[in-house]
């Protein structure tokens, strides 16, 4: 085996055998899945119960239960239904907001005489309600007020009004791909997930390269090593070895995730089908209805078909190319940092210029989700320091020309060759320099220095 092969092998095997690698590789997908389901679970379940007082002195949404019964009830029984998160109460008096603090209610919504015209009302709160809760409150109020306007003011049958009412939505169709809906946003999100993966791997394994170089330097093995191999071989051996560790971990994650996802989907499917069965039995509860709707949309091919609009072979190819290219580029810089300093704590001053473009490309990727054709996004999906991350979003959306891809790839190749060269220049001097705090000026000297 060639010497660089031996170096790669050592870097690879010592890392693969580490307990931390094995633990992370197995726990990674579990953590990821846990995070995903945890977030969903939290948003669904972690809600306080709000007691909401509707103060309605003008009787816009409430009325007395009967002639002898002066209890206030909603005018339209479909609205203002209590659920596990919201309990409604009604009053016709105006209440002082201060009383909220110690009273039974923690939210008060005040309807006044203009509310019926402009839909505005004050919401007093002790605890700010979540988007979800606000949604329910607004929904209830809106429908009730609408009914009031339609039935009481315009004297139109509410059912007729509902039939007349229309929500406008777009089916997005790209003129270049007539005959199919585009689903740009959903695809962009998938691309963003890939972008995050590349971002994470470059960071995690780039820092490992830096640590590895620093360890060789501080343990003083490096001078023995460079008396046998060229510094460039040592650096590239480390970069490639660690890159392979990253790819290995990624592959295992993909396989494990696929297995987990299959199990997860099976589980969901059986539960959702139950929900649908409940619907057929006629025992419809609001909860069951939601599930049934979800189940139907999942079963309905069209709803999920957009996943196949993504050009997956291209996506996977791009992912591998930009993962490797981006890693080579950044890992050489991380290696140079590791070589330039004497201890972990000194790495900070050089980390910033390396992490900045990484973080920036993350931000641009997020922006591309809402604005896929942004010229800034287009530029940074070619600019090699940011392209490995941002281009994943564009590839997933598919609004990217062959020329765009080719120029991004070419730019990346040129850039990683340049940065490997630059990193190697700093590396070869840095690994043999001890005890001096290095400045950017020194780095510049090293770059220009002959061997």
């Amino acid at each position, binding site marked *: 085996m060639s010497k660089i092969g031996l170096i790669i092998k050592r870097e690879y095997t010592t890392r693969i055998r580490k307990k931390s690698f094995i633990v992370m590789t197995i726990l990674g997908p579990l953590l990821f899945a846990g995070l995903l389901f945890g977030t969903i679970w939290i948003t669904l379940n972690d809600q306080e119960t709000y007691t909401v007082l509707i103060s309605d002195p003008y009787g816009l949404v409430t009325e007395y239960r009967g002639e002898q019964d002066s209890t206030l009830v909603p005018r339209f029984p479909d609205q203002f239904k209590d659920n596990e998160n919201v309990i409604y109460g009604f009053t016709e008096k105006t209440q002082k907001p201060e009383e909220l603090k110690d009273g039974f209610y923690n939210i008060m919504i005040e309807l006044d005489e203009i509310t019926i015209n402009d839909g505005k009302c004050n919401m007093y709160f002790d605890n700010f309600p979540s988007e979800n809760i606000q949604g329910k409150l607004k929904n209830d109020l809106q429908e009730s007020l609408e009914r009031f306007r339609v039935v009481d003011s315009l004297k139109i049958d509410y059912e007729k009004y509902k039939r007349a009412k229309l929500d406008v939505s777009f089916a997005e169709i790209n003129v270049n791909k007539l005959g199919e809906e585009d689903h740009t946003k959903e695809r962009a999100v998938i691309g963003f997930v890939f972008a995050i993966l590349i971002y994470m791997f470059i960071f995690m394994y780039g820092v490992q390269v830096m640590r590895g170089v620093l360890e060789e330097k501080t343990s003083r093995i490096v001078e023995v090593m460079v008396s046998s191999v060229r510094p460039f071989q040592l650096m590239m051996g480390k970069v490639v070895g660690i890159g392979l560790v990253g790819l290995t971990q990624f592959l295992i994650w993909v396989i494990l995730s696929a297995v987990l996802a299959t199990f997860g989907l099976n589980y969901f499917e059986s539960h959702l089908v139950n929900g649908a069965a409940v619907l057929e039995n006629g025992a419809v509860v609001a909860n069951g209805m939601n599930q049934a709707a979800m189940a139907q949309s999942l079963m309905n091919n069209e709803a999920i078909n957009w996943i196949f609009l993504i050009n997956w072979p291209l996506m996977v190819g791009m992912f591998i190319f930009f993962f490797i290219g981006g890693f080579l580029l950044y890992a050489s810089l991380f290696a140079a940092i590791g070589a330039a300093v004497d201890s972990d704590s000194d790495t900070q001053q050089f980390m910033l210029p390396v992490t900045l473009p990484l973080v920036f490309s993350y931000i641009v990727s997020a922006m591309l989700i809402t604005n896929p054709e942004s010229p800034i996004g287009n530029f940074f999906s070619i600019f090699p320091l940011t392209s490995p991350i941002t281009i994943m979003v564009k590839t997933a959306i598919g609004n990217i020309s062959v020329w765009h891809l080719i120029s991004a790839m070419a730019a990346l190749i040129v850039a990683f060759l340049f940065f490997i060269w630059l990193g190697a220049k700093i590396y070869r001097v840095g690994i043999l320099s001890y005890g001096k705090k290095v400045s950017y000026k020194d780095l510049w000297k090293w770059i220009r220095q*002959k061997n």
Partner: protein
Amino acid sequence: MKYAIQAEGINKTYGKYQALTNVSIDIPEGKIFGLLGPNGAGKTTFIRILNQIIEPDSGLIKFYGNPLQRSHVENIGYLPEERGLYKKMKVGEQCVYLAQMKGMKEKDALTELKMWFEKFEIQAWWDKKVEDLSKGMAQKIQFITTVVHKPKLLILDEPFSGFDPINAELIHNEMLRLRGEGTTIVLSTHDMGSVESLCDNIALINRSQVILSGSVAEVRDSFRTKTYTLKFEGTLLEFTIALGARFELMSNELINDMHTVTVRIKPEFKLNDLLKQVIPVVDILSAEEKVPSMHDIFVQSVLSFNEAQA
């Protein structure tokens, strides 16, 4: 004479800093060569050039008669002053890896290493982690990894630092044995005692230049000052009168009625002439030439060179 290394007119600068100035050093084959000099003189730079870790700005190096090239690293063993091992690796694994880096096949490396581990009686360490070794143990491992591939040229930078006397003796004897087998050894050290007991030739580098070189015998010869140490019984006054103008009394000491004096003789005279003068007046107990030690030669050369430059 055959040479392992012939370095001619080597120059090396780091930015404005001149690390080596027109350095020419010839290292004879099969000998132990002492590379001496104060800290920062340029020894490490020269050693790194020999190891092709860095390249000289100008000058030529021949390795056993041929211009130094990349493949020669496999014929060189290098123990740097700043040395270490991969802490997380196992001892045996690490030794095999470093031997492979020097071009050995895994199988050959295992055979050779087994021999060395038996010789140093450290077989039990094979599966230990390097981080669990003491400093002395790690030094033994480092020495083994330096010599395991049977290099023709061995470069040892301060090999004895950190060793206890027992292990230092072990390394000392190994060096003599390897020389006996034809290995050329470059020894860079500040320990002048080991230079005297081991080295055949030396070069003294000071402020980037070679200021002294040659065989140890020649160098010491050139530093002889015709100074002799005499021990005698009698009176110092009569002894001093007998010396006259031809001989100069440098120092004297009286212990238990015995005088120990050092006397310098003018170039045109010999020890016999001195003895003829003093035998009549005192009882001579012994007389021997005061040969300069390598320590004295080192200090004297460096100081006089620095004075001349200042």
